């Protein structure tokens, strides 16, 4: 937020507005809310925490959106982005009508068309792909609530392949690692019981800048109750500033620290012996494995004092089992991420925190039956075996692998549906590959609310209306209290935009697949589902959120045997699945590459004001944070001869340059690293505010480390330097 600039702007506006003031005063503005106020229940869609909220309009115009006090995701308080979400409705740069790619005089251009024409184009190309290659050659990339309508449509058509970038570019390593260890993943909302934690350890996770609402709230609740916070981060992040111990670790050496902590817990007999004996397998192998990794060894890797490593390990043990080694969310860093996340899972097991108060609770969702409709036929071929057979432990699509299998004439995939994900900035270093894929694919359909860069590759772009203008599926997450929440529209869709359910259903009609969407309006589906659990659409439109009683215990019951969904039926400190697939069954530390001379580790993260690149153009949030800055330590800035606030470009060792970006000289970063907030540096001028504002980190990533266990893209092994504008 640059308040000084706002003032400059307001001085200009002020001189224009001065006249009426001098000519006899202006009338007093009406008090907020003194007009005709109406409310609607919604679920925020600005990030994927999905807080239930109430939309207020005054005299039919958008006023504000406020958290629903009954919702455990937000407890009546939306975050910065959620509060700003209301401006997504009025954003003047929204996609307005369907367009298709046409060639005119040898030049390609987008031509506005009717929905019917757009659907005819898509259906025609899908049929051609089916005739030539088969019905299973279309892949879906999706990040958002409406994606499942397209998943159903494509499955009905015969294409079952899909990928959420939230797996291979984000949470995949932790879900895989926790699955291998405990037999189930962490899920979202994360099953972290922070409100009851007495010690919380964050490994590179910057909760607070990463504003997943109830996570932030429960972290603050724990701190208020005197919990010990330990933050491991090369940067003095917001949670680092709230921590009892900040461990400014050398980038990429987290696994060395985790192994040293295990070494201390085991050798000092600080682990939860009863829990380990009752629930775990492979302890002896683990104890032998960690012997070489004492704090003195870890010091050489991490730069952290052995005494500090021991002190923090003891603090964790003292608070156990109410100690949470937080699994993080975006964890695709160095390519050995599943191994690092396994180390985190194992540490939690040694402390006995899985299934215990203050550690991890057990999730439950509402038993909500699906609307009665025919099941799409099963796939003709096993697409996972064909395209991602190298990753047998992964049960979902790996977005970057699906893209690999879309390049060239012999590629498996011939068409893409992309729902609400800007693959260009989501997947690191993907630009040239996307260009090649776009050459060989016969169909690319993009459904979005905003003209994200990826729409530039599309054959057909379909404008979805915003979350404030549509019904979506009921929110039904596995969490502490089973809860349903309703998103209902406060406005009718602007321009020609339409909700995802309508788009998928109407396209199904053009493909003779109506039977899979046997309803006219999505309200029928919602009402039917709600009636099966003793509610109704009318009730939900009134209350917005409804909690249901739990049927299963929140924590393990003391003394009771627990059956884990692993090969041994126990918590696997030593993973049989990993051993069986040729991977290290116990976490192994891989030292990171160090930057070449004159270069810095490229670190990136989130800011409270934005959700990746999705909100940069939101007028309210843009005003709060109009560009990102590159954080540089004063000693590095002195060597580079760059000044605070000066514009520079970032350059990676391959010579790729970023957009220009301002320098922020700060003590809050290690001298060997730079940091910038992800999501900036938009290159599509149709997003008029976001265009050219700040720099994009993903485009600078040159050293992508693929995780051999789950196929994800490690994004923290890249290096950059700063180039002055006058150089």
């Amino acid at each position: 937020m640059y308040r000084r600039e706002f003032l400059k702007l307001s001085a200009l506006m002020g001189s224009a507005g001065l006249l009426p003031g001098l000519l006899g005063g202006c009338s007093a503005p009406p008090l907020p809310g003194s007009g005709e106020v109406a409310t609607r229940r919604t679920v925020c869609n600005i990030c994927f925490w999905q807080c239930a909220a109430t939309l207020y309009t005054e005299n039919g115009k958008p006023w504000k959106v406020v958290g629903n006090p009954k919702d455990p995701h937000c407890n009546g308080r939306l975050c910065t982005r959620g509060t700003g979400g209301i401006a997504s409705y009025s954003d003047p740069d929204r996609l307005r009508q369907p367009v298709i790619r046409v060639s005119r005089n040898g030049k390609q251009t987008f031509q506005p068309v009717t929905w019917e024409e757009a659907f005819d184009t898509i259906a025609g190309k899908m049929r051609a792909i089916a005739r030539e290659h088969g019905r299973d050659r279309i892949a879906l990339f999706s990040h958002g609530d409406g994606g499942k309508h397209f998943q159903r449509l494509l499955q009905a058509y015969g294409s079952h392949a899909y990928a959420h970038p939230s797996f291979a570019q984000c949470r995949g390593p932790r879900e895989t690692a926790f699955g291998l260890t405990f037999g189930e993943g962490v899920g979202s909302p994360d099953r972290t019981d922070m409100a009851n934690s007495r010690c919380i350890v964050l490994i590179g996770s910057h909760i607070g800048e990463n504003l997943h609402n109830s996570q932030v709230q429960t972290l603050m609740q724990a701190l208020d109750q005197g919990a010990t916070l330990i933050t491991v981060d090369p940067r003095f992040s917001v949670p680092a500033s709230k921590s009892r111990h900040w461990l400014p670790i050398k980038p990429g050496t987290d696994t060395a620290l985790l192994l040293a902590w295990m070494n201390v817990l085991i050798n000092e007999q600080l682990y939860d012996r009863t829990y380990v004996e009752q629930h775990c397998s492979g302890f002896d192998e683990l104890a032998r494995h960690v012997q070489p990794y004492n704090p003195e060894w870890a010091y050489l890797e991490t730069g952290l004092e052995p005494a500090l490593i021991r002190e923090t390990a003891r603090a964790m043990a003292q608070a156990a089992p109410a100690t949470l080694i937080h699994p993080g969310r975006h964890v695709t860093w160095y390519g050995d991420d599943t191994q690092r996340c396994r180390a985190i899972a194992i540490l939690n097991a040694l402390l006995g925190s899985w299934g215990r108060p203050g550690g991890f609770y057990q999730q439950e969702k509402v038993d909500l039956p699906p609307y009665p409709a025919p099941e799409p036929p099963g796939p003709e071929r096993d697409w996972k075996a064909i395209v991602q057979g190298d990753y047998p432990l992964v049960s979902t699509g790996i977005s970057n692998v699906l893209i690999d299998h879309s390049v060239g004439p012999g590629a498996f995939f011939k068409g893409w549906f992309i729902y609400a994900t800007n693959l260009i900035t989501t997947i690191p270093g993907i630009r040239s590959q996307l260009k090649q894929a776009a050459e060989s694919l016969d169909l690319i359909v993009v459904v979005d609310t905003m003209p994200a860069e990826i729409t530039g590759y599309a054959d057909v772009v379909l404008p979805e209306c915003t979350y404030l203008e549509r019904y979506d599926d009921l929110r039904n997450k596995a969490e502490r209290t089973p809860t349903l929440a309703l998103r209902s529209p406060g406005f009718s869709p602007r321009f020609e935009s339409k909700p995802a359910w309508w788009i998928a259903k109407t396209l199904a009609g053009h493909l003779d697949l109506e039977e899979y969407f046997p309803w006219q309006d999505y309200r029928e589906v919602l009402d039917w589902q709600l009636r099966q659990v003793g509610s109704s659409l009318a009730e939900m439109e009134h209350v917005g959120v409804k909690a249901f009683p739990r049927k299963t215990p929140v924590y393990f019951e003391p003394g009771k045997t627990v059956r884990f969904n692993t090969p041994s039926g126990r918590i696997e400190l030593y993973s049989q699945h990993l051993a069986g697939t040729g991977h290290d069954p116990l976490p192994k530390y891989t030292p990171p590459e160090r930057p070449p001379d004159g270069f810095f580790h490229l670190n990136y993260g989130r800011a409270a004001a934005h959700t990746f690149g999705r909100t940069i153009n939101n007028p309210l949030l843009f005003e709060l944070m109009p560009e990102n800055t590159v954080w540089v330590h004063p000693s590095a800035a002195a060597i580079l001869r760059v000044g605070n606030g000066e514009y520079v470009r970032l350059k990676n060792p391959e010579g790729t340059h970023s957009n220009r970006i301002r320098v922020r000289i700060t003590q809050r970063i290690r001298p060997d690293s730079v940091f910038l907030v992800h999501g900036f540096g938009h290159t599509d001028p149709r997003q008029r505010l976001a265009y050219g504002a700040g720099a994009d980190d993903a485009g600078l990533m040159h050293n992508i480390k693929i995780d051999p266990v789950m196929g994800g893209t490690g994004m923290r092994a890249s290096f950059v330097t700063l180039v002055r504008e006058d150089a």
Partner: protein
Amino acid sequence: MINYAMVIDTTACIGCGDCVVACKNENQVPAGLNRDWVVEETRGEYPHLHTEFRSERCNHCGHATCVTNCPTGASHYWKDTNIVLVAAEKCTGCKACIAACPYDARLIMHPQGYIDKCTFCHHRVDQGMDPACVSACPTGCMYFGILNDPDSQVSRLLRTRRHKTLLPETGNIPNVYYLV
């Protein structure tokens, strides 16, 4: 007389700016202008650092120099409270209040031609609600209440927690307190 005060716990503030956006929505503050803002202050040298985040706004001073310096009476106390408001119909835009405010808390000019500022959301306070920023804050680090009621939460917090105000030496008697 009712003395309203805001208490902000800097140890829980994460500098997220939700207070800023919530205020803009609630009060329909024009683009480019803000009635509140967030300050980040970092002290020390790597790795021995301390960072404080602080949401700032009009201090609704007990001795408000903006009120005493306003030539038209546009700047005034609301009812029998310390909430300082600007009556748009009396404001000539002369900016004397801006010069008199030690906190730089006034918007230079609303596009409609008057000086604008934080009102402590008196329209909400009138209905027994907290200001919009306080209600929205995701960490719950902001509190609002009556300072001359010894049983109010703000009074209790100030009795039990270390705190400060900004520029107390001006003698303006600011009513936004920061727990440190």
